[in-house]
């Protein structure tokens, strides 16, 4: 793993999709008037005959995707996360999820990563997609995972929802890192750690930074990366939490219905009595603002993880202070 501030890259998804589509002629790319924003401009320019812009009409897009998939195409549907989940939920449910079709729905700007306010911030997309039978829900943490996820979800039969950060994507993992759709991974620590931090997507940098601070204050911490929220790798999660004094989930999503809820279900069903705290958006809509501003204001920062851990462990005094990682241009720093 690399250290923050992380190097960034542009359009890892768009490039991976184009490379895959060159080898797989059955792949069709659909978009709804957000071509550059969903990194699919490079697909459009390279394979225009298999790129279809449906205009601002997401419901129709989902229905067309379903028809194409019934005719044995693999269809990648691209727009912002809010528009491919909330806006056309019945269409995703009936035209894609119920018939188990090979449609890969890619939603950009998860949680509070968009400055665009509540209309553009997908704070409930995981909850919505997780509730649909047959749907796989994926959230890669960095560019290395994004590249691997594209091929992995294409190979996985049936519908997939993948939420992706838009724009500059950090490079956290080494090239040797392997994303598996049925596995959560221990990034640091071990199953005898006092604190078990379970995170995914854009919260991985904060989870890693928080664990490092805890270790430096004599508190052992394990960090689990959960790139697939459904189906959840419950065995790895329960195993990692078995000897912990507290489990903390960290998600760039409403704490209702997302990773925190999924982990709570897994732990409860396994009979685990370990205390659980959910770091995430506290059941409110967001507002406009930068990622740094919003992650701090809505409780998604490294400091929030530290505060929850410190209080949860019943340790006295103020919790340790999260280091400020200088945000340099061309690099990505955890908040």
């Amino acid at each position, binding site marked *: 793993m690399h250290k923050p501030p992380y190097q960034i890259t542009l359009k890892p998804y768009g490039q991976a999709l184009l490379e895959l589509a060159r080898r797989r002629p059955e792949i*069709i790319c659909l978009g709804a008037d957000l071509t550059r924003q969903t990194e699919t401009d490079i697909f459009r320019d390279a394979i225009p005959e*298999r790129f*279809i812009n*449906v*205009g601002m*009409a997401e*419901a*129709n*897009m*989902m*229905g*067309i*995707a*379903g*028809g*194409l*998939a*019934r*005719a*044995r*195409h693999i269809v990648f549907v691209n727009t912002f996360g809010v528009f491919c989940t909330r806006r056309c939920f*019945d*269409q995703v449910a*009936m*035209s894609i999820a*119920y*018939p188990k079709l090979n449609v890969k729905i890619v939603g950009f700007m998860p949680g509070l990563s968009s400055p665009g306010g509540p209309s553009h911030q997908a704070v409930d997309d995981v909850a919505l997609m997780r509730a649909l039978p047959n749907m796989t829900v994926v959230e890669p943490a960095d560019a290395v995972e994004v590249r691997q996820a594209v091929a992995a979800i294409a190979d996985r039969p049936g519908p997939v929802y993948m939420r992706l950060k838009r724009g500059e994507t950090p490079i956290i993992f080494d090239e040797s890192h392997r994303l598996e759709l049925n596995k959560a991974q221990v990034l640091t620590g071990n199953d005898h750690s006092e604190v078990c931090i379970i995170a995914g997507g854009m919260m991985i940098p904060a989870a890693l930074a928080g664990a490092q601070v805890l270790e430096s204050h004599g508190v052992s911490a394990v960090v689990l990366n959960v790139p697939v929220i459904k189906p959840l790798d419950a065995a790895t999660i329960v195993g990692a939490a078995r000897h912990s004094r507290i489990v903390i989930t960290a998600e760039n999503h409403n704490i209702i219905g997302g990773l925190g809820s999924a982990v709570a279900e897994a732990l409860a069903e396994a009979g685990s009595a370990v205390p659980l705290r959910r770091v995430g958006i506290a059941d409110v809509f967001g507002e406009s603002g930068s990622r740094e501003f919003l992650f701090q204001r809505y409780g998604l920062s490294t400091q929030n993880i530290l505060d929850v851990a410190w209080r949860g462990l019943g340790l006295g005094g103020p919790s340790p202070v999260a280091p400020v990682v200088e945000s340099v241009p061309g690099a990505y720093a955890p908040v």
Partner: protein
Amino acid sequence: MAEQQQVVSDLRRLATQIRLSATRMVAIQGFGYLGQALSSAEIFAVLFGGVVRPGRDRFVLAPGHYVIALYAAAAAVGLLDPTELESYGKDGALLEAIGTERTPLVDLVCGSLGQGLSGAIGFALAAHFAGGDRDTYAFVSDGEMQEGQTWEAAMFAAHNRHRMGRLVVVVDVNNSQVDGPVTSVLAMEPLADKWRSFGWRVLEVDGHDVDALSRALASRSTDSEPLVVIARTEIFGRMKSIPASADGHFIKLDPTLELALISELEAALA
């Protein structure tokens, strides 16, 4: 000429058979989506009496409540074992009252209305990518066109007309929806003008005239705009036995009405 008259006569009989089978299917429970079959009997007779090529063309049934008419038509033309019709709507039956993913004989059926045309466009695009002469037929009903997705799809098809030449849509305009006549709930006329303004070639016919329906479908051309046939029908299919006060969307069929309707239909077949 005599041959054409025979075809028309056969299609009329087929439409009557569809109505008769549908009446018997609904009679088992005493209520059901009979009006849909009565209004669309000629449309299904024409589509399944020679237009749709089973195994080659794709058929999309947008409003899943009409599946009763499809079952009846399929049984009449040998695509379905007629004894299967007796299980219609029963617990665990293959022939469900509203179409699902289990429904046989269709490439796509939608219980949630307004979604069928989009799926049909997906099929038409796939056929375009694959080449060949595979047609896509979509049956749509008038009430479901209140769903905005219909018009998203209509706009898309016209904009992509060079890839939609093998898409044909038939609309059953029976002026019936759950809360009453479409004209009283949310009027959509002028329908032909709406489709035309969205870039479609529009033909408007008497939906109970098998000859007019056949000619309209035969007039399609694969190198022009997609074709929509607006079939004007009546929810009770011009059956004299059914009082005008009956609920068209979900008919209650008491034994007296059932007997009268079956007698009327059997007389037409005699």
